[in-house]
C-alpha cells in the first residue's frame, strides 16, 4: 500500500508506545539463540535475529488450549446435568514484531486451514486481535534455510506492516489499514520519498544472490516426485534412522495437528476440554479406537510427513506445506531433512528410470 520511513533510533519509542495498548511479542536473545517472547523492554527486541526453535505459531495456536469448561451435577429433580461454558483462551490485542517472511507464509496457511470449511472460532477470535509486523530477511538464517527454493523469500500478503532495514532506517510497507493507523498513531514514521524507494530496491535486489538453492527440483515438481516415489527405498532407510521424537513437527510453522482431551478436576465434577499439539511422527498419533494403527512403521510416518509438506497440503489448501524455514533440520538429531530427502528421492527416481 504505502511506504513509510522510520529511523532505527525511533524504533524503541514505537515499541514502547505500542505496549500501552498491546501485548508486544518479538524475537529476544536466549542463552543459546533466539526465541519469540513477550517484550517487556524495547531493547530486548532483536530484529537481526537468525531463527528460533519454535516459530511464532505458538501465539496463534497455543500448545495447550482450553476449548470449554464443564460442570457435572444433578438438578433439583435429581437428574444428571452438564453445564458447558465456552472458553476463548489467549485472546488479547497482540503485536507480533519481526516475523520472517517464511513464518508469515506459515500463518497464511493457518489462516486458510482454520477458516475454510470448518471455521475454528477459537483460532479466528484470537487471530482477529493479532497485528503482524514482518521483517525482510536480508541474509539466510543459516545453512538449513531453503526459503529461496520454497518461494518464501518475500513477504506474503498477510502482514499489517512489513519492515526492511535500509542503512540507518526501516522502510515500512503497510499491508492493512489497521497497520497504517498503528504506524501513524504510535510512531514518528514519515512518508518515504522516491529516493528511499530506490534505496529499498537496491537492498532487495542485493539480497537475492546471498540465498542458495538446495533442491534439485523446483517446488512445483515435488507433488509429482512424491507421488511417483511413494514406494521408493529411501523411506525404509529414513524410518530406521528416525527416533520418532516428533521434534520436526513440533518446531514446524505449518504443522497444526492437535489432540483433544477431557480433563476432570480433582473434585470429580468440573473439568475442561483441551486441545494440545500432536505429531504425526509419534506412535500413538495414528492409533485409532480399536487399536489399529494406520501408520505403524516409522518409515510410513516419515513418508507421511514429507507427503504432507510436499504434496497433500498444497492439494487441499493451495499453499505449500513447507516454508523452507529449516527448523526441522536443525532439530533432527539423525539428520533427516526436507532437502536431503527430496534430493535423495529425486536421485533414486532418476536411477530407476535410467535417465
Amino acid at each position, binding site marked *: 500500500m504505502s511506504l513509510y520511513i522510520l529511523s532505527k533510533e525511533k524504533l524503541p519509542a514505537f515499541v514502547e508506545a505500542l505496549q500501552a495498548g498491546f501485548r508486544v511479542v518479538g524475537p529476544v536473545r536466549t542463552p543459546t539463540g533466539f526465541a519469540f517472547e513477550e517484550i517487556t523492554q524495547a531493547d530486548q527486541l532483536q530484529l537481526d535475529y537468525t531463527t528460533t526453535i519454535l516459530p511464532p505459531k505458538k501465539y496463534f495456536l497455543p500448545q495447550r488450549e482450553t476449548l470449554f469448561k464443564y460442570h457435572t451435577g444433578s438438578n433439583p429433580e435429581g437428574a444428571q446435568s452438564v453445564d458447558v461454558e465456552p472458553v476463548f483462551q489467549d485472546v488479547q490485542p497482540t503485536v507480533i514484531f519481526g516475523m520472517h517472511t517464511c513464518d508469515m507464509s506459515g500463518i497464511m496457511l493457518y489462516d486458510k486451514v482454520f477458516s475454510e470449511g470448518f471455521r475454528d472460532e477459537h483460532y479466528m477470535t484470537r487471530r482477529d486481535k493479532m497485528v503482524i509486523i514482518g521483517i525482510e530477511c536480508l541474509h539466510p538464517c543459516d545453512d538449513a534455510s531453503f526459503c529461496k527454493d520454497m518461494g518464501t523469500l518475500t513477504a506474503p500478503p498477510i502482514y499489517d506492516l512489513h519492515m526492511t532495514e535500509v542503512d540507518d532506517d526501516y522502510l515500512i510497507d503497510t499491508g492493512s489499514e489497521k497497520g497504517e493507523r498503528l504506524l501513524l498513531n504510535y510512531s514518528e514514521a514519515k512518508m518515504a520519498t522516491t529516493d528511499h524507494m530506490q534505496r529499498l530496491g537496491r537492498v532487495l535486489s542485493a539480497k537475492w544472490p546471498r540465498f542458495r538453492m538446495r533442491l534439485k527440483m523446483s517446488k512445483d515438481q515435488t507433488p509429482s516426485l512424491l507421488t511417483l516415489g511413494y514406494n521408493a527405498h529411501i523411506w525404509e532407510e529414513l524410518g530406521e534412522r528416525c527416533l520418532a521424537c516428533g521434534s520436526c513437527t513440533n518446531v514446524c510453522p505449518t504443522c497444526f495437528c492437535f489432540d483433544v482431551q477431557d480433563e476432570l478436576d480433582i473434585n*470429580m465434577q468440573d473439568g475442561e476440554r483441551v486441545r494440545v499439539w500432536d505429531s504425526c511422527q509419534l506412535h500413538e498419533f495414528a492409533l485409532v479406537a480399536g487399536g489399529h494403527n494406520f501408520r505403524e512403521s*516409522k518409515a510410513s510416518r516419515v513418508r507421511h510427513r514429507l507427503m504432507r509438506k510436499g504434496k497433500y497440503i498444497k492439494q487441499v489448501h493451495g499453499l505449500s506445506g513447507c516454508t523452507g524455514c529449516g527448523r526441522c533440520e536443525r*532439530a533432527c538429531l539423525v539428520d533427516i531433512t526436507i532437502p536431503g530427502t527430496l534430493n535423495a528421492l529425486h536421485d533414486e527416481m532418476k536411477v530407476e528410470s535410467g535417465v
Partner: protein
Amino acid sequence: MSAKPKIAFFDFTSCEGCQLTVIDALQTHLGLLDLVEIVQFREAMSEKGQNYQIAFVEGSCTRKSDEARLLAIREQASAVVALGACAHLGGVNSMKNRWPIENVQTYVYGQNGKDAYESYPARPISAVIKVDAVIPGCPIDRHEFLRVVQMMLQGRTPRLPDYPLCVECKLRENACLNTLGILCLGPITRAGCEAICPSYGDGCEGCRGWHPEANFDYMREILRGHGLSDHEIDARFTMFNHYQMEQMSGHAPLSEAVAPVTDTSLPTSSFAAPKED
C-alpha cells in the same frame, strides 16, 4: 458417595524419595484427602490398617523374602501401583546386577556380608506380581501422582505417554543438549516429566524407562558422536534400566552381553569399611 476408598503405601528397596514426594503432594493438594483414606503409610503415620483397595509400592524386589510380602499386598489390594523407578524398572538398584551377587554383598557389607544380608538381583515389582498402574520417575512427579490417583478413582486406566522426552523438551523450547556437547538420553526415554532435567541443563538419564519405539542403535550413534566408548554407552543405558536391557538382550541393544559379566571384580572401594545399617 459411598465410603472413601482406602489406600496404603509400602516400601521395598528404595530411598523413600518417592514417598516423600507423595507427602509433598498431599500438602499442596489437600483435596486428595477428601477422596481417599490412607490406612498405611510408614513415612507419615504409625497406624497400620490391613484393609485397603489401592496399594502404592515403592522400591524394587531385591531379595527372596520380598516376594512373599509383595504377594500378600497383591492378595489384599484390588489395584497395585508401582511408585517410582525402583518399583517400575528396578531402577538404580539394578546397577548391581552387573556383578555376581556375592561380590556385591562382600563389597557393600564386608567379608561376612554374604551370610548376614540377604540379596539377589534387583527386579521391578512387575517381575513378581501383576501391576495395574505405574508412576515412573526418580523421584516421581507429584502432578503425575495426583493424576494417576484421580484416574484410578474414576475407574479409568492411567496411561503413560508412549513418546520420547524430546517432545516435551521441544515444547519448552529448550536448545537440544546433544547439540551443545551434553549427553542426553531424551530420544529413547519415555516422556512425562516435562523434560525437567534438560530444562535445567542436565542430560536425561532415562529414569522413566524407555518408550516403546526407543531407537537404541541411533541413540548409540549420537553418544558415539560425543566420544563415548561402547562400554561407557552401555553404562549409560543401564543406569536405571539394567533389568530392561537384560530382558531385551536378545535384540542386542548393548554392545556387551549384560549377564553374565566377565569382569567379576568391583571397582576398588574408597570406603572399604563395611557399612552397617
